């Protein structure tokens, strides 16, 4: 495959080799080999249905929750095989946070949305909780907006605020990796801009994998890009590399027409 590009600088955090995910008998993606460098932002792009979401869900084994879903091949996180049945899923998912396309705050108060997962992970001290709540809300720029109504229901926030709350909720657990599945596509342009800036500001502190349909956004925020495409009934990785390389000098014909807006 022509898409094996060595990553410069940072070493790989995730290493997928010949990774395949099937729902029952139908593969969502097949034979994907990709390394995701630590501390950088990797964008996954490609037309609808090419398996981007499925790929993200295999990175934190959320695919385990889908009945009949099986992942094969090899997938390593910092050298550790995370497809093995021995893996502590709770610890894995704490290390690898995820944000979904639609904001999905729990039907609790804003505060409880943040404290509940923390308490479940063993943080009991009230002062510590309060500090963490404030810090993670500041991280996502939400603190000043909502510090006076922490006990209001989270679902009363606007879509953009809810999405940032979800981000804060994930950040509060101090993950190493953030998986973002089209985090801006359900938001209005203004909130979308805010969330995008936020993602850029997290660069370096977290390893970020972001799925987006917005090529301009991928270009703005990402360091690395991976292009998925449906070929022969299953999603495949057709090209990956640095943003500059994929957008300026794509090796693959499909990639070229996709990034120039002729297909996809």
């Amino acid at each position, binding site marked *: 495959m022509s898409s094996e590009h060595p990553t410069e600088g940072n070493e790989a955090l995730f290493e997928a080799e010949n990774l395949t995910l099937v729902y029952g008998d139908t593969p969502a993606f097949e034979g994907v080999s990709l390394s995701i460098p630590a501390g950088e932002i990797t964008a996954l792009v490609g037309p609808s249905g090419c398996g981007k979401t499925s790929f993200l869900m295999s990175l934190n084994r959320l695919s385990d929750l889908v009945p009949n879903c099986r992942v094969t091949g090899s997938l390593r996180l910092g050298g550790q095989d995370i497809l093995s049945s021995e893996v502590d899923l*709770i610890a894995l998912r*704490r290390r690898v*946070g995820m944000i979904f396309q639609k904001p999905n705050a729990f*039907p609790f108060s804003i505060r409880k949305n943040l404290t*509940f997962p923390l308490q479940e992970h063993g943080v009991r001290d009230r002062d510590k909780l309060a500090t963490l709540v404030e810090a993670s809300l500041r991280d996502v720029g939400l603190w000043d907006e909502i510090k006076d109504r922490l006990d209001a229901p989270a679902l009363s926030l606007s879509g953009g605020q809810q999405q940032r709350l*979800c981000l804060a909720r*994930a950040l509060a657990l101090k993950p190493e990796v953030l998986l973002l599945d089209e985090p801006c596509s359900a938001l209005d342009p203004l909130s979308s801009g805010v969330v995008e800036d936020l993602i850029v500001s997290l660069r370096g502190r977290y390893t970020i994998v972001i799925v987006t349909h917005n090529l301009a956004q991928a270009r703005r925020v990402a360091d690395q890009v991976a292009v998925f495409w449906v070929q022969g009934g299953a999603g495949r990785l057709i090209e990956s590399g640095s943003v500059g390389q994929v957008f300026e000098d794509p090796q693959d014909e499909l990639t070229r027409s996709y990034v120039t807006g002729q297909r996809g």
Partner: protein
Amino acid sequence: MDSLARSQRGEKLAQVVMWSSAALVSAVFLWMLSDLVTNGLGRVSWEFLTSSPSDSGRAGGIGPIVVSTLLIVSVAMVVAIPIGVGTAVYLAEFTSTESLLGRLVRRSLDVLAGVPSIVFGLFGSAFFCKTLGLGFSILSGGLTLACMVLPILIRSVEVGFREIPDHYRLSAAALGLSRTSTLLHLLLPAAAPGLAVGLVLGIGRAAAETAALIFTSGYVDRTPESVLDSGRALSVHIFDLSMNVPGGTPNAYAAALVLLGLLLLINGAASGLAHRWLGRNIATL
């Protein structure tokens, strides 16, 4: 033949038949309701609800019978709720449609839902009264009813869980929450509508039941001292007054009105909750 005119005549006729059959059904319902109200309301009072029956129930009130009914229903629900909710959680959250245990449990609950109450009565009398040695008692009656209300309870609670959008489960898992705490803190509160509907419907079923109680909790119309005493349920009281006590009809009217009012309230609540929260009616749940 003018086929257009004929089909229009047919349409007219259909309209008349539809409206009159609907009117007939409503008339029967209103007839029954008004009959019970006009003949029963005069006797229903606080005094009636709290005093003891005398002269085999021809005079006096239904105090001890209300107490027994409440106890029987409470025993039934206390036993049925943990089993019902646990089973519903298992079926909704922990089994795929292919799992063997899930399929067997579902199938057997479908059959259980159809078992006639008199057969539950036979079972209760053989198992709880005789084999377990509980005799004619509120406990026997309550346990029999617990078996009886289990299917409807499980079905409503399961519907409640299935109505919860999947993203709750996904995002909880993505935060590294255990299934236990996801269940306790997130899913259980979110399934509250189904729980409420199931609870109310179960109470309604239990309170309405007669046949399963005649030979499990018995006829004794004194206030029970414990759940091991026999106690007469309100429905059994109505049956006894109207069939076995000449001159018992006036008080039977009053007792029937109380039971009817109670059940209309309970089922009205269940139906309101089910429509508002689950988007379905309680009979086809």
